[in-house]
């Protein structure tokens, strides 16, 4: 019997279950795109049939890091850039948990970039939402890794000399198996993409455009937007790496020309998740490791019987 009865509980899920009984007043500014992520995430939950006690939401630091203050589930608000390594270990410890990580563009593409690349490379079965507002919000408007070239801020008074990072292309090269971009102003698409990402068996990366009305007025709330799956202009096979790469390049470049392209950018269903790979080579137990610590009948072998012979 499982020690975690919330996991795979068979019942109808209401989106309101994910709203805390007493909701703390949000620290987000009026009109902030982060509200859109929260809403879409709550809406996706009944669709994927997950209840609050089987979802573990790991966040980084920044406005986005407050997400789990307003989302009623198990939460771990970690440190700047480090949500992914904490999250993926929880998934390894208990693969039955629904693990979601979230953070901003500074968090995931700047300080935590190394983890973003390696977590994608390993293809952990989890969802990663990057709140991309092209700015450092909580520290009051500095240039971020996704700010356009020439972006002026108090820390880049002459305009940034750096080209922005290409988050979608980077994730494709790193090994993510589900990559999409959506926007806070497009709640239906956002909800669908989050639900698909959660159901995807592998690392799902969502670059979520979240307008910052306070510090990044130039970004104009990411409207109008185009859903590439619904536009006649973009006819590409989302499971074809080369075509996906070309679509991502266009999507990344046009954002800085004022054209907001959104939708599924790459989906690869065949590649096994990291957990499956590790179980395959005998480096991970079949039963979730976390269960063992609550199982009174579990057998705990000791080194005296197994390893000491070699030293005699």
């Amino acid at each position, binding site marked *: 019997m499982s020690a975690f009865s919330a996991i795979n509980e068979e019942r109808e899920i209401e989106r309101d279950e994910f709203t805390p009984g007493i909701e703390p007043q949000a620290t987000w500014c009026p009109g902030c795109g982060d509200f859109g992520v929260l809403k879409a995430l709550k809406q996706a939950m009944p669709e994927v049939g997950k209840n*609050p006690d089987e979802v573990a939401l790991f966040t980084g630091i920044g406005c986005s890091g407050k997400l789990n203050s307003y989302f*009623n589930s198990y939460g771990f608000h970690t440190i700047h850039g480090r949500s992914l390594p904490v999250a993926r270990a929880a998934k390894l410890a208990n693969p039955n948990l629904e693990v979601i990580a979230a953070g901003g563009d500074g968090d995931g593409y700047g300080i935590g970039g190394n983890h973003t690349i390696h977590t994608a490379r390993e293809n952990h079965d989890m969802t990663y939402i990057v709140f991309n507002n092209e700015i450092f919000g909580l520290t009051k408007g500095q240039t971020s890794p996704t700010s356009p070239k020439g972006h002026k801020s108090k820390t880049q008074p002459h305009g940034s000399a750096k080209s922005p990072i290409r988050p979608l292309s980077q994730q494709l090269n790193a090994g993510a198996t589900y990559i999409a971009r959506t926007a806070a102003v497009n709640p239906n698409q956002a909800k669908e993409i989050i639900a698909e990402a959660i159901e995807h068996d592998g690392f799902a990366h969502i670059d979520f455009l979240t307008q910052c009305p306070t510090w990044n007025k130039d970004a104009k709330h990411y409207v109008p937007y185009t859903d590439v799956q619904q536009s006649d202009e973009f006819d590409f096979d989302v499971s074809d790496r080369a075509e996906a790469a070309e679509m991502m390049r266009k999507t990344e470049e046009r954002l800085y020309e004022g054209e907001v392209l959104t939708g599924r950018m790459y989906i690869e269903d065949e590649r096994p998740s990291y957990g499956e790979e590790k179980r395959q080579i005998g480096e991970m137990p079949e039963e979730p490791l*976390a269960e*063992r610590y609550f199982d009174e009948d579990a057998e705990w072998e000791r080194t005296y019987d197994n390893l000491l012979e070699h030293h005699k």
Partner: protein
Amino acid sequence: MTDNELIWRIAGGSGDGIDSTSQNFAKALMWSGLNVFTHRHYPSRIRGGHTYVEVRAKDEPVQSRGDGYNFLLALGDSFARNPQEEAYYGKEELKPLYENFDDLREGGVLLYDEGLLDEEDVDEIGLEEAAEENNWHVVPMDLRGIAKEHGREIMRNTAGIGATAAILDISTDEFEKLITQNMSGDMQEANLNVLHDAYEAASELDVDHDIEVPEGSHDEEQVILSGSNAISYGAIDEGCRFISGYPMTPWTDVFTIMSQHLPEFGGISEQVEDEIAAAALALGASHAGVKAMSGSSGGGFALMSEPLGLAEMTETPIVLVEAMRAGPSTGMPTKPEQADLEHVLYTSQGDSARVVFAPANIRECYTQTRSAFRIAYEYQIPVIVIYDQKIQGELRNLPASHFDEEPNADPGSVLTEEEIQDAAHHSSGKFQRFLHEPEDGSNVSPRSVPGQKDGRFLATGNEHNPSGHISEDPENRIAQMNRRLNKLDDIRADLDENTSHQTYHGPDEAEYGILVWGSQQGTVFEAVDRLNENGHSVKALGVSDMAPYPKEEVSEWLESVDEALVVEMNATAQFRGLTQKELGKYGDKLSSLLKYNGNPFEPAEIVDGFESSIDGEELAASNMKYLPAAGD
């Protein structure tokens, strides 16, 4: 120097099989009934460079390297890049010969491979003069030739063992048994032939010397292992089934042993992108209900500072090991030092709330790693096991029964789902994970684990209220800070009540004391024995609990002596500083004997250091530093 002991040193290049040969030699002597202890010295490179290992063997228990050594097997460096010329670092091929001149005792035996080391070259390094002066017995043998005759050149080390056995009149039985156990087929046959041929050849030389190999016997079955083995086995026996890490010398050893064995025990090992991730993964696994660890050495541990602080703030249990090497920065990667004490005690922002244990030997590596997990999970606090390159790699025999202990996988202060139903919940529905005043009156507020029904809470590095939500309310702040820090008092009381991690040595009523922490303990204890034999009145205290500091124990001990010398392997007397800070006094009672040249103390150095300190004389040796007590 003590009589009736063999200290056999094998020297060669990295890659010449020095490590494996010395391990076999030590094991064979253990089988023959002796007690053994090894000391390794090696450079930070893969092929070439002078490396040596000493095997010290005695009838009685041995807990330290000795003073110098009495038998040298110099294989020469077959991987030398500049074998013939005078290279930047000196004549490399010959280094494993002439760099060992200083410590070879008078009357010692020096066996070298003349198959590799040219006679003319050997003449140039002044071996003849040195041998005459020290009354050494020099034995040149063509070990390479013997090895090549039956197999490959790499078997020079087996030839060296055969020759050693003949010269010292040790039976080859145990060596044969090892070769038979470890090898098969042609390799086995070739090595056996090399062993026998070298034995015969050396017997014919009839080397006349005074070294007597002691004889001994064991009352019970012995095992021989390293500190890295003992730390790993302690972790596994205490239910650790998750490790994450990134390679770095000398921590790599523990990481390797755990990675090789955890899958057999149903656990998981993760090699990850950097040490920030390594510590963060261990936290994530622990948060999800698994007993987890990570670790590194100096520079890598620096990267773990922020996750370490997160563990303190979120009260997520975790065990980290820190294997010290000589710093600062990259320092001397393969040399031991004890200079990361302040680093592990204070790194990460804010007031630290952590436990730090410094085991002094292989036995303590096992027991204190087990304590580390028990404390971490019971009190929801990070525990660091700090050790050094010396303990990591040295081998020592001890009774197998030391490890005959029951496993304990108890995840500590975690509630079951049934208990969560009855536990306090906030009106928002969240489980009260961080109660100001936990129900049992302790300072530990039991946790839930993701997936448990009705156990959801927020863990955050921000200051937080009982259900985990961010709060900057001053009263809440004080309550949470106090509760987290008060756990340290509870842990101190717990440790005092259970077995003490401190080790006492020497006569109770002694006039003087030597205070030591970590890996130098055995050497200090040996020095204390000699000092008492020399007519001094000295005792020693080995301290393992760095935090929470055992104030009562150390105060009581310091009160009982007139003065105390603090022995440690660093340049700034870190442990002495910690002791004075924790006890708030004794600045005028504590002096320091420090060594930071990359080599651990020898017992005789501590004897000399102690004697010059009480005589108020200058330290004769230039490889150590003496810091007087305040006011002296």
